[in-house]
Each structure stands twice: as structure tokens, then as C-alpha cells.
């Protein structure tokens, strides 16, 4: 398949994951509302919000970095997604995956957050700065068990390519990492709770004390860009977790079912639990999930 064809199909798969990620967001809002005994917004509300935000007639910029913050963020989201093979064995939905792409993806997960931190910092709002410091601290903490879990996988499968990791899990569901390396999966799933920023790790966007976190000063199409990225990045993370730990997917239906249930874990936890303070969540991440990660690394390196 030549490059132009590949780019064309990468755009199609990007569109698919954006729509699916935003729909998941809508479903999650609906679930939260039902848990609280409300009717909740319609499932397509995230799309309406994006249209509304992009149709706002004026916008205020605070400088170059402020302007580039959401751009970096969405570049991080797209970058994460572009190097993950979406469907195993499909020539159309394999994006730009290559050997060693796990490392690249892990870098891109960080990249967007750092760009956003710079942009939100130039906005000058004190709440942005508070939220950025909380967010980066928490991100550094949950990155430790996640990285340990990925190292454990690399040791287990003797590869750094996502496609090969997925290939090694084919055959039966008993070959999934979930069953062959459960400690690493538990550590990574706890890290994903922090990544998705639902309760108990939602202090970064704490809607009551520091209004909506880093994007306090962002408005109009900046916010539309950030909301679109929430779909892309959320979808990309779910596809990555599905590939690494749950055997990947061979068709779109399997992908939708698996990512939905992976997401539901953080939603169920988020709907049921209260919130950690930043230092508590850091302490938590550096305690049990990190210990599990270290044990699983030791098991496969010995």
C-alpha cells in the first residue's frame, strides 16, 4: 500500500475514533446523570458543544503559547493515535504503526499535557497554574505504574512493537495479557483511572474549587479544539489499552465492545467514589500500583 493510500485510511480511522470517543463521552455523562437520578444530557451533547464552541464569533488570545496550547494538545492526541494499530490484521486500520511504537506512544501521551501546561500558563489565570501543577504532579505519579507495566510487557513478549504484542495475544482469550500477566494489567488499569481524570483522581479539573482546571481562560474555538481532542485522545488511550492488555481487535464491532467496557471501569469507579487530594493520589499511585508493577517486572526478568 503506498503512502497516500495509507494517509487517506489514517484520516478515516481518525474520524472513526473521534466520533466513537465523543459518543463515549456522551454515554458517560448519561450514566453519571442516571446514577445521580437525573435524566442527563442527550448522548450527542458533546457534538453540539463542539459546534457551539466553534461557532462563537469572538475569541481572545493571550499570546503565542496560549494559542499553541490546544494545538499541542490535539497534536499529542493525534500523534498518540497515529502510531497505534487499531485493528489487528487490517491493512486499512493499522495507521503508521512500526517497531518500537510503544515508546513513541508513551512519549506522545505526555506531549499534549506539557503543551497544554505551557499554554494555560500564559493565560495568566491563577487557577490554571494551580490545576497545571496538580495535573503534572498527578501525571508523573500515574506514569510510574504505567511505565512499569509496559516494561513488564516488553520483557514478557520480547518486543516493543504494539502489533507484535497484539499478535502474541491471538488464538484464545486465555492468551490475553490480562490472563498471562495479570499484575501488570492491574497496575496499568489503576494508572488509567488517573489518566481519565474521573473520581477519585479528578482534582485536576476540580469543577468547584478551581473552575474546570487548566482551560479556565480558554474559550470559543480553543475550547472546541480541546473538546475534540478529548474524543481523539480518549479513544486513542482506550485502543492502546485494548491492544496491550485485552488482545486487540480484529473488527470494528469487537473494538467498540472492548473499548466500551474498558472505559466503563473508570466510569464505575468514578461514579461511586469520592475524590482524592493531590498528595493522596500521588501517594496512592506510588504505593500499590507501583509495587504491583515492580513485582511483574521482576517476575518476567528473572
Amino acid at each position, binding site marked *: 500500500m503506498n503512502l497516500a493510500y495509507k494517509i487517506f485510511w489514517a484520516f478515516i480511522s481518525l474520524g472513526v475514533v473521534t466520533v466513537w470517543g465523543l459518543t463515549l463521552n456522551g454515554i458517560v*455523562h448519561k450514566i453519571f*446523570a442516571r446514577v*445521580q*437520578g*437525573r*435524566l*442527563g*444530557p*442527550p448522548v450527542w*451533547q458533546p457534538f*453540539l*458543544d463542539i*459546534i*457551539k464552541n466553534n*461557532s*462563537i*464569533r*469572538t*475569541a*481572545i488570545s493571550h499570546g503565542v503559547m496560549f494559542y499553541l496550547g490546544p494545538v499541542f494538545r490535539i497534536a499529542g492526541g493525534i500523534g498518540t493515535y497515529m502510531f497505534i494499530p487499531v485493528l489487528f490484521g487490517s491493512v486499512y486500520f493499522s495507521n503508521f504503526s512500526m517497531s518500537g511504537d510503544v515508546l513513541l506512544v508513551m512519549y506522545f501521551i505526555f506531549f499534549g499535557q506539557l503543551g497544554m501546561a505551557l499554554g494555560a500558563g500564559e493565560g495568566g489565570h491563577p487557577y490554571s497554574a494551580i490545576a497545571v501543577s496538580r495535573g503534572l504532579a498527578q501525571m508523573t505519579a500515574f506514569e510510574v505504574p504505567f511505565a512499569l507495566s509496559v516494561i513488564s510487557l516488553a520483557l514478557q513478549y520480547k518486543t516493543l512493537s504494539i502489533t507484535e504484542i497484539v499478535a502474541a495475544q491471538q488464538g484464545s482469550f486465555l492468551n490475553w495479557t490480562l490472563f498471562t500477566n495479570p499484575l501488570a494489567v492491574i497496575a496499568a488499569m489503576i494508572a488509567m483511572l488517573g489518566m481519565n481524570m474521573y473520581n477519585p483522581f479528578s482534582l485536576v479539573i476540580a*469543577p*468547584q474549587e478551581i*473552575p*474546570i482546571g487548566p*482551560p*479556565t*481562560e*480558554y*474559550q*470559543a474555538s480553543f*475550547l472546541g479544539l480541546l473538546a475534540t481532542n478529548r474524543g481523539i485522545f480518549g479513544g486513542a488511550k482506550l485502543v492502546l489499552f485494548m491492544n496491550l492488555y485485552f488482545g486487540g481487535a480484529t473488527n470494528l464491532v469487537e473494538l467498540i465492545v472492548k473499548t466500551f467496557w474498558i472505559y466503563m471501569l473508570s466510569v464505575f469507579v468514578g461514579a461511586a467514589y469520592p475524590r482524592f487530594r493531590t498528595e493522596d493520589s500521588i501517594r496512592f499511585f506510588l504505593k500499590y500500583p507501583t509495587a504491583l508493577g515492580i513485582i511483574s517486572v521482576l517476575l518476567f526478568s528473572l
Partner: protein
Amino acid sequence: MSDIEIKDNPDIKSELQTPPEPGYSEWRKDENTLYNDGLPEEEKDWFCDARPQKARKSVQVIENFLNWARSQSLWILAFGTGCGAIELRPLVTSRYDISRLGMQPRPTPRQANLIMIGGYVSIKTLKRIVRSYEQMQGPKFVVAVCSCAINGGMYWDSYNTVKRIDEYIPVDVYVTGCMPRPEAVLAGFNKLKELIKAGKAEGQNLYIERFDWYKENQKKVIKDWNMPDYNW
């Protein structure tokens, strides 16, 4: 009966209906800049002194679609100034639940489309309201709740309460009552949605069109004007 005097103040009405005269007030340098006279000299560089411009609309068909999207996704900046603010809380609970209408409270004016004035407006509050209103982006809508925001209500003879909020910011929908029930506020929101869909809620452009008139009214009552003339 005789001591109740019906006040018909013709000059206010005519001022409301006729557009302000062109010509520069003393706080405007020229057509496109503002003086920012209220600021101390060393702070003048910190703030933008550009005069706000009227926002352009798109083609009518696209504008209709966008207006529909705007009406389906209203983000509220609840400016709880008085007793009416208490009536806003039930709106997000399970009994009334405005989120099913696509509305959600938003804690920062930058991201909100709809500012709700929750009741009586004292001078100190008016300053903050003007500031928050000007920091909001895009087509922005104002809903004023309670009779105090409409005609002063029980503060009709108060020394520190403005009696009609529409002289200071353009109001799209009033909800009467002291205080209105949440159902009444919901009815007000539905009325606002109709206005938006019909393209009649153009308060932002009205504010810029009559900028001088609104500013003069604001400066008449806010005696210590220590913020820029337009809070970008």
C-alpha cells in the same frame, strides 16, 4: 390613591428607542480606541484599549443552523447576586435537571454564553456584572431573574441598588417573581431558546452598537471606575 404617582419618564424611553448620536464622548480618543481613564497611568499598558467591533454573521442558512446549535448548548454563568440565586440550585438537581436541555453551569465567564442576574443589583455588584459580561465571548445572552432586576422590586427606594438592569447591559429575557419558581426560570430559558432560534437574541451586537450609551449609564452610577473601559 392620589399619592401613587405613575412615573412616565419620556426621556428614558426615547433614549432606549433612538440610537445614540455619533460623536465622541470625552473618554474616547477616536473612533477605534478607548481612553481607559479610570486606570492609573502605570497600568494603562496592561490592558487593551481597542473599541469592540460588531461581530459579523455568516450566511443566513448556516447562521440558522449555528443558532440552533447555540440554543441546544447554553452554558450558564450564574451571577447569584440576590435571593434569586437560591432558585438556581434546584435547577441542576434531579427534579428539574437543566442538563437534559443541554445547559450546564460554567464557573468562568470566558466559556459561558448565558449570564443570569440572580436578583437585586447593587453598585458594587454592577461593576462585577459589567466586567463578567464583557469577558464573555461570542453571542452572549442575559436572563434577569426576580423583580428586583426588572424595576428595583422591594429596593425601589434604596440608595445603592440600580432599578433597571437593562440600562447597563442588554437583557434578552426577564423572569418575573419574587422569587420565581424554578419552573418559571425554565420557562424563561425556553423563551430564550426560541429567541435564539429566531435570531432575535443579538444582545452582543446591540451592546456594541449602543456602546457609548451603555458606558455613559454605567459610568453615571459606578463612581470609582478603576477598570478598563472595555474588559477584553
